């Protein structure tokens, strides 16, 4: 099996943490992985993305070709749409529905949501709002990972959940528990939806 995933968002929203959790789970499971990141200038509030490629077979390219991505996982709705040319026809878009408006010409929300709904396979949720409701504003990214978990397929939700335990272990059991709870909130939100 092969899964090509584009992670997107705005600098500082924590997409690299999502990549780290998936990457750790893949390495533990013995699945091949390549993950291209963006460092440097664009991290200052600009658009950021990471190409994450998982496969049972050898992976050559660090980048995903256009029309080849199985999923776009995005912390921000407009940023999900930025990478649409990379999505394959049957691909899924899993995104936060909370806009991050740090530019003056940010599109009207209604137009934005309509554009998202035009995609055949899309899951969206106001994850920032959900994270605040549960008093875990810093865990919005892990809620998003939970939402995406059942679509990743090459790794099970359980493998991802365990990976969260290892990735956050150094920060103590409280942080681990909170992030696993955030993951479950995302996972269940999709199950119920």
């Amino acid at each position, binding site marked *: 099996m092969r899964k090509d995933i584009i992670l997107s968002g705005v600098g500082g929203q924590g997409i690299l943490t999502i990549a780290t959790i998936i990457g750790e789970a893949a390495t533990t499971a013995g699945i091949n992985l390549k993950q291209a990141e963006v*460092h440097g200038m664009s991290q200052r509030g600009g658009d950021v993305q990471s190409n994450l490629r998982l496969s049972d077979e050898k992976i050559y390219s*660090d980048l995903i070709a256009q*029309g*080849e991505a199985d999923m776009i996982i995005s912390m921000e709705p407009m940023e999900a749409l930025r990478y*649409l040319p990379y999505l394959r026809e049957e691909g899924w878009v899993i995104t936060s529905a909370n806009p991050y408006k740090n530019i003056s010409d940010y599109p009207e929300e209604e137009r*934005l949501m309509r554009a998202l709904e035009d995609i055949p396979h899309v899951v969206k949720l106001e994850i920032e709002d959900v994270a605040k409701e549960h008093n875990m504003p810093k865990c919005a990214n892990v809620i998003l990972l939970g939402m995406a978990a059942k679509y990743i397929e090459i790794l099970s939700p359980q493998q991802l959940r365990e990976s969260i335990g290892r990735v956050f272990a150094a920060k103590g059991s409280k942080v681990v528990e909170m992030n696993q709870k955030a993951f479950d909130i995302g996972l269940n939100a999709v199950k119920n939806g």
Partner: protein
Amino acid sequence: MTEKKLLLGDEAIALGAIHAGISGVYAYPGTPSTEITEFIQNSSLAKERKLHSTWCTNEKTAMEAALGMSYAGKRALVCMKHVGMNVAADAFVNSAITGVNGGLVVLAADDPSMHSSQNEQDSRFYGKFAMIPILEPSSQQEAYDMMDYAYTLSEHLRLPVLMRVVTRLAHSRAGVEVAAIREENPLNPDNERTHWVLLPGNARRQYQALVEKQNELEESSSKSPYNCLEGLDQGCKHELGVIACGIGYNYVKEVDTDGRSIPILKVSQYPLPVEEIRRMASGCGHVLVVEDGQPFVEEQVRAILSSDYEVKGRLTNTLPRTGELTPDNVGEAIGRNIKRPFGNSQVVMPRPPALCQGCGHRDVYDALNKVAAEYPDARIFGDIGCYTLGALPPFRAIDSCVDMGASITMAKGASDAGVFPAIAVIGDSTFTHSGMTGLLDAVNDRANITVIISDNLTTAMTGGQDSAGTNKFEAICLGLGVEPEHVRVVVPLPKNMEEITRIIRQEVEYKGVSVIIPRRECIQTLNRKLRQKKADKE
């Protein structure tokens, strides 16, 4: 099975260098090379071995210190981004003339597509210019494995080795299997003064010896485990053969060739393996060169093959002349049909990076814009760092940004020509990197310029590395001869706006060199420290 570690290309290089027995890394931060030195700084084995890993003031001091470590018999690594090679070039080119004692690897991280850079120069030209071997890994595993190979090669040829990577390798993670760990070299300073004292008489002999070594370099390339010709069927004539350099190889390997058999010559060591190129070309109708960066190989291949042999690549627009390789443009060049079920969304707007909320540079630009509005002829010369973002809205404050340190010297030149006011804005780390010499020129010429050293106590753009001049700026400026009453320090906060604008006005009106130092810690490093403190308490 050996343990697999998930490493960035940069981290694989760092670990490979540690395992190859380096005694030190010398570097100035620069995207996409920064994580190499950071990894060594945080490595427990490097700490245990007390490997040198503190940041250098600039790439030239780094290159020279690394050469000194090599002179002393130990293995050294020097890392920089591509434009850093311009700064290090004097030492770099001459290190090929002196040769090395302990192994010396120069790592240049190129940035095709200019993700975080002001040009996309290709460092392989520097390697050819200096006439030394160049390595260009195609994967994180190769980057790791190549470090030991590079040091062995360097010590065997007694030459520095240039290793060239690009952003997409440097900043991409993959599983890497690690090898045995080698001991450091013993201290063994070179006694051969005729190699190291580059008086013309010695330099001529050394240069002649370097020229004579070139055959050995070519032989090493043709035997290299990192260069290989695959898929060439001697019995038939292939329509197309591909020369795939560095990570270009990966994109070629991913193309679905619809059953067409396309031989690939993978090139990861230079000088080019000339015989292999001729051998592949003779079995193929034409050749496509796939290389990230400038058409370095393509131009050479045209010279190697007969003039009527068709060579395609960036020069023929088969691949774009500018920008990085992607699976898409390589796929198209080989003839893959790209299926894009979804087009570009019309709703998406550009989201450029911006200065952080609460950043001191913001207050500096607010103040500068206020004063500049009173002088319609004012020109503000910027420099390289976070504060380059002052060029974008809402500030639109700077008129130029060229290279490290150019703010001060360009302001001086413009002032010499009659521009008034001529104001330079430079960060603390950039000032010590390449601004100090320009300030001395300005002082010696009594230039009428105002220099703003926006001091956030760190090298912020690359992620908050130590800045060489922290706590020394007033002393440096006074030492260079700036008048004490014209070295002014302010705290860039909105509540101090009146004082800051008043001081800028006064210093603009002063006919001579003045330096204003707005000083407030970078909010990124400040927040990191606060988080760390909080975590330590818990």
